[in-house]
């Protein structure tokens, strides 16, 4: 087994010279960052992060694909997804009968994504944003109609979409990406 323990010791630091050196180094690095801050702050409402496509954001139902199996409600760890009974008219046969449809309650949802992953027909999918505004708690409890539309994304309307890429020297670097409505 290559994993080994390695005895280490704390480097010595007592003595007037070491202390002096430590002070100078600390101030020097402070001055260095003062002149070259390498910031990565997101100025939030003016800019927003365009998250990747695989981000686990809000969940949208595609009712056309839904086979009413109820797996999503069964696996939901927070009991956010529940099934409601609604009439459904089969386009081929024209028959109407009651079926169970999933709706989500965002008061409870923890965005674990189990429901999306367990859906056998990909009827559920995530949108790649999470900054959505609800006026009240009742509105967070989705209806079957609102669950089928992607929620409104307010920051995309006025903000500039950016994405962070990882850089060797600066850590996170903010770059502008396509998208947004402005």
């Amino acid at each position, binding site marked *: 087994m290559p994993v080994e*323990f390695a005895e280490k010791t704390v480097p010595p630091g007592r003595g007037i010279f070491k202390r002096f050196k430590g002070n100078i180094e600390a101030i020097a690095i402070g001055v260095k960052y003062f002149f070259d801050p390498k910031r990565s702050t997101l100025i939030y409402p003016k800019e927003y992060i365009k998250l990747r496509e*695989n981000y686990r954001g809000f969940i949208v139902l595609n009712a056309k694909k839904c086979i009413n199996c109820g797996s999503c409600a069964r696996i939901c760890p927070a009991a956010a997804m529940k099934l409601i009974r609604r009439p459904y008219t089969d386009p081929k046969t024209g028959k109407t009968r009651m079926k169970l449809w999933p709706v989500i309650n965002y008061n409870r949802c923890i965005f674990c*994504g189990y429901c999306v992953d*367990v859906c056998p027909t990909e009827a559920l999918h995530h949108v790649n944003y999470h900054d959505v505004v609800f006026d009240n708690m009742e509105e967070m409890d989705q209806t079957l109609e609102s669950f089928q539309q992607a929620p409104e994304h307010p920051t995309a309307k006025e903000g500039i979409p950016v994405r962070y890429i990882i850089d060797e020297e600066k850590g*996170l670097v903010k770059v502008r990406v396509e998208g947004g409505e402005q």
Partner: protein
Amino acid sequence: MSGIVRGNVGFNDLKIPGMWSRKIGKDLYEVFIGPQHPGSGHMRIIIRIDGDIIVEAEPDMGYVHRTMEKLSEGRAWIKAIPLFERMAIHDACNVTLPYVRAVEKLLGIEAPLRAKYLRVLLCEINRIAAFLYGFGIFGVFLGHSTMYMWPFGDREVWVELAEWLTGARLTHTYPVFGGVRRDVPEGFTDSLRKAIRYMRRRLEDYRKIFVDNPVIRARLEDVGVIPRNLAIELGITGPNLRASGVRYDVRKNHPYEVYDELDFEIPVFQEGDAYARVHQRVQEILQSLRILEQVADWLDKHPREPVMHERFWKTAPPLYKKIFQETGRVKLGAVMAIMKIPQGKAYERGETARGEISYYVESDGGNKPYRIRIHSASARNALVYKYIVPGHRVMDLPAIYGSIDYFPPEADR
């Protein structure tokens, strides 16, 4: 007279379990640090001071107790994973992995090799992020606001990587029974290598402004010394234990996943003081970076292959396999929600950023756990305050608290 408290009985004579009181010495000054104190977190430490010296310290835990063990008994097996993540959300993969492994043990399966590497990948990313989180809290406890902002900013790099891999910043819910939920996306390993090189560079900056800063050294050296025997006696775990000179790391002593195939070393310091614990964590980050490099190399060499155990993947419909090949997303079978785990008991442990976490899982053959017992690292580390804080000055309390890297939600569960 049992059960009746007479009028002249002192408050000290009351013996209510968990609500004991104690006489205060004449010259002692009792100060309640927490739970609504800027330097306490979700915890209270009652200290009694004589002048500037702390004579007694009592950690009073339990402010964020959420009955996780009991909650898990009422829900399906897979639903306990997102629950247990909430013990330490920035260390989510490390905290839930032993539970997943314990259930896998009961099922008699083992994750595919690629899934194991992916688990290690996220574990180490989480570990680094958790160490940086600890550094940030530690820095601000010592009044060093730059050391608060820098690690939190650099932690964002690792959180960003974790988000790219799993789709969520913190509560990844990444390992599930039989495998993991996503494969690495395109271009991930390149960014990972950049992040590794960046982190090495930044650790040098941390050294200059914090670790080797004479003010910080003066605050930390010979403060909060945990002697080796006390550390063993109290069952301290993780970096705190290794900083006291005990050679114990779950990744080495009880290797899990692919830790025994990777080339890294486990640093051990002999000093046992707060300063050694800082160095311990810096070294641990360096070793985690080393592991990540090897994992990145391995992932580059090996093409995409199923990251779910055959038992679940064999029966997967073609749509599932197509989605996995295209996006790397693993669809879960509907059986996951109603799965019955064979009767039995399993015990698994893992090394989180704060120390050893262990799960005892018992199944009665149903679709819900019969009993899950969690032994988390912070609960064991928190005991140490009672023993090492007395004798120090009041201003040493944040230094010791920060150096232990205590995380109340993990301890209280």
